[in-house]
């Protein structure tokens, strides 16, 4: 299945999630109703005839009472919905970083010097650049167990978390396997569903909390001894609600299992496909199996987030024991290993922690300078078949990974260091926007002098040479690389930064495509770190709904190439691939704000529409048999605008 197929499937799984949730709510409502009736009945028993009330439904004459059902269901449903709305809102405020925070994660600064941390960042960076995703910030959880997670609504707010155990106990290949597994979750839309699920199911857990509250209410010293203590009927009700709440939580677990457990096998398989190295991930699983801490995450909040993790975060699996725990959020380790290595029959060997840690550290220290072995085979860089290219969207191959590693190596060390530091990364961004024309550059500099820190200006002049000499195809990876460092700015610093970027772009009163793309990439991916996240809903299902927008994007792309007859090309591409005849937009109408609006609308298109449009884009690019840098940059801007990760060409 290709990227778009996975997206369609993710959409269906989201609907399934809502359906399961609806069913669970109905079950819980009836259970709460039974509990309340029983509680009231207990109240009558305790107080006999003195239990009088004006309200008729509070008196239990028969099990079924419509008025009682109405009140109970209204209260329950509103409690659950309020809980879900609240949690979803909270997650929208922080995105993936909120999940990392809840688990007690600390952000790894991208310019960290520690060898093991550096290695982890390198692995993540290579994989992100190979798959065309913005590089996600990495959080570290101070846990001895070996585990990892990915969380986020979209590529812009996604974060990757790894435990200290994972970076200390896993060799580079093993770690790469684990990270590839997490990238599979990101690329296949699982992280998004996990976020939705966490928000939605939170309400279910509130019922048992209410029960707990009733059980413990009025026990505090503030009440006089006569007032203290709860009415016995309330105790019964509280206990019953607590039990019902447990049912709700169990159902929430079941839903999580139904929606996400099978995805673990897919992610394992994808990790093998991405790295072409089945041993990496299977060895990682074996290390977890043989390690006394396993993949455990000791944190109070780990239980509602179990489905985010690489391995079972909750239950420690005994070494070598066949664990078939049907309730667990993840399939048993041995089964996962066997699916990767069908001939694996062996027992899991106990891992000597000290020994393994020393080996990992030694490997990391030696392999510190060079990241990946690059001298494999020459890579096919020319694309001759757009179908094949399209199949690679949202996927990763070993070749791409090697290519990304090679690209990163071509980047001068100094520039790479600059890009990893939030102080100097700004200077790199400014330098990228400097005009090649001396006079224009002069204007830009004098404008910048007024609004930017003069020290940054010095850094900019310092790095200017390297930035100007940088091969054009490395400009995109460079921008991707800088994102985690830039996300570490404070809100005020971010505002100044954005203002300066705009000043630089507008200095010459016209916006070049590169300037547009840089601004768009930066703002799009940085914004979620400083503002709340907008959830994207699929609104447009047919190409016809978006014909003007598709036309705008395509004609802009045509303008980037050197096509002899642009209008003819436009007509053939739109009718052949999009299956819709569109009017050729006049050149005047091609304003970048128009493009911005178009991309914003296209983001809400169904995956099939996005696929068709990307196919059409590829057709346009290949029409003259040449790949211009401008074209590949425009393609990246278009694909990124629709949240489709496009691998390096």
């Amino acid at each position: 299945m290709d990227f778009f197929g996975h997206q369609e499937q993710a959409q269906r799984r989201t609907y399934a999630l809502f359906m399961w949730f609806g069913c669970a709510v109905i079950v819980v409502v009836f259970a709460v109703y039974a509990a309340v009736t029983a509680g009231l009945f207990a109240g009558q028993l305790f107080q006999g005839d003195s239990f009088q009330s004006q309200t008729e439904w509070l008196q239990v004459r028969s099990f079924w009472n419509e008025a009682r059902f109405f009140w109970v269901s209204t209260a329950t449903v509103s409690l659950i919905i309020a809980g879900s709305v609240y949690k979803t809102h909270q997650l929208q405020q922080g995105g993936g970083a909120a999940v990392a925070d809840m688990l007690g994660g600390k952000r790894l600064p991208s310019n960290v010097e520690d060898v093991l941390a550096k290695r982890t960042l390198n692995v993540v960076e290579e994989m992100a650049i190979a798959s065309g995703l913005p590089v996600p910030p990495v959080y570290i959880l101070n846990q001895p167990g070996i585990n990892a997670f990915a969380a986020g609504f979209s590529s812009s707010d996604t974060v990757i978390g790894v435990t200290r155990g994972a970076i200390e106990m896993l060799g580079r290949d093993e770690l790469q396997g684990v990270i590839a597994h997490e990238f599979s979750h990101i690329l296949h839309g699982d992280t998004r569903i996990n976020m939705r699920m966490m928000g939605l199911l939170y309400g279910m857990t509130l019922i048992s909390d209410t029960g707990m509250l009733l059980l413990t209410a009025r026990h505090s010293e503030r009440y006089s001894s006569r007032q203290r203590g709860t009415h016995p009927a309330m105790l019964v009700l509280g206990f019953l609600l607590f039990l019902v709440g447990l049912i709700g939580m169990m159902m929430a677990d079941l839903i999580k299992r139904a929606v996400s457990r099978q995805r673990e096998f897919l992610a394992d398989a994808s990790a093998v496909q991405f790295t072409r190295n089945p041993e990496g991930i299977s060895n990682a699983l074996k290390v977890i199996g043989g390690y006394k801490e396993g993949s455990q995450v000791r944190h109070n909040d780990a239980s509602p987030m179990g489905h985010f993790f690489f391995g079972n975060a909750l239950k420690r699996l005994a070494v070598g024991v066949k664990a078939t725990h049907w309730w667990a959020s993840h399939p048993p380790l041995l089964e996962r290993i066997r699916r990767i290595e069908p001939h694996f029959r062996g027992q899991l060997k106990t891992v000597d922690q000290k020994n393994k840690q020393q080996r990992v550290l030694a490997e990391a220290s030696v392999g510190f300078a060079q990241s990946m072995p690059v001298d494999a085979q020459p890579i096919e860089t020319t694309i001759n078949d757009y179908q094949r290219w399209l199949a690679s969207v949202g996927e990763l191959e070993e070749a791409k990974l090697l290519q990304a590693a090679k690209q990163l190596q071509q980047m001068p060390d100094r520039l790479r260091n600059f890009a990893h530091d939030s102080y100097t990364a700004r200077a790199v961004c400014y330098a990228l926007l400097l005009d090649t024309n001396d006079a224009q550059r002069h204007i830009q500099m004098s404008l910048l002098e007024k609004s930017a820190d003069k020290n940054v200006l010095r850094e900019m002049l310092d790095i200017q040479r390297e930035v100007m000499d940088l091969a054009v195809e490395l400009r995109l990876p460079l921008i991707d690389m800088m994102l985690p460092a830039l996300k570490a700015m404070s809100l005020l610093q971010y505002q100044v930064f954005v203002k300066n970027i705009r000043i630089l772009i507008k200095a010459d009163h016209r916006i070049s495509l590169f300037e547009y793309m840089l601004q768009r990439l930066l703002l799009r991916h940085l914004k979620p770190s400083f503002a709340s996240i907008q959830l994207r809903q699929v609104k447009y299902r047919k190409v016809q709904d978006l014909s003007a927008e598709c036309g705008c994007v395509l004609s802009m792309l045509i303008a980037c190439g050197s096509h002899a007859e642009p209008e003819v090309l436009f007509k053939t591409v739109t009718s052949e691939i999009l299956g819709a005849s569109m009017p050729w937009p006049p050149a005047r109408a091609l304003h970048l704000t128009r493009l911005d609006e178009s991309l914003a609308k296209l983001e809400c298109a169904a995956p099939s529409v996005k696929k068709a449009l990307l196919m059409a884009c590829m057709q346009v690019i290949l029409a003259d048999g040449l790949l211009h840098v401008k074209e590949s940059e425009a393609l990246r801007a278009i694909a990124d605008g629709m949240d489709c990760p496009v691998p390096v060409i």
Partner: protein
Amino acid sequence: MEVLLILLAVILGLIVWVIIIYNRLVKLKNRFQNAFSQIDVQLRRRYDLIPNLVETAKGYLKHEQDTLQKVIEARNHALSAMKKASKNPGDGKLMQALSGAEGVLGGAMINLNALTEAYPDLKADQTMQQLTEELTSTENRVSFARQAYNDEVMFYNTQREIFPDVLFSAMFGFHLAVLFEVTNAEVKEAVRVNF
């Protein structure tokens, strides 16, 4: 009974409200603590550079061992203060200790700089020039990271003092976080002259 139900609903509403306040404060606290790790990295870089600088200067400043010794001492002192502060960023005492240690180190560095002026050979030394340049850049990075941290601390402190939050912030252990401000040695000196 009806009253009881309404009461229950009100209590539930209040609990949700308090949870929201709590979560908001946790988020802001995490933000400034993460911002401190950025300072941590930059300061470490600086503390690593200083011994190199001193080592290079040693060859030229044979008769100024005292000043060099002071720089190293101040650096070691600041390093241990930073390590302590990074365990619990924002804590009043630890941050003050760090600010103080940083101020002393700044003063020692200024003395060293002043000395350098008197030794043209040392000033012309290539390694020395490189190290000084790198140190200046690191200095700027430290102040940028510090600014980011102070911004986040300011947001956090403001939030915990705003009306509903202020009722709970102390109860939940959200203490006032302290800014990281370095007392500038030069300014201090100037003040002393005026007295």
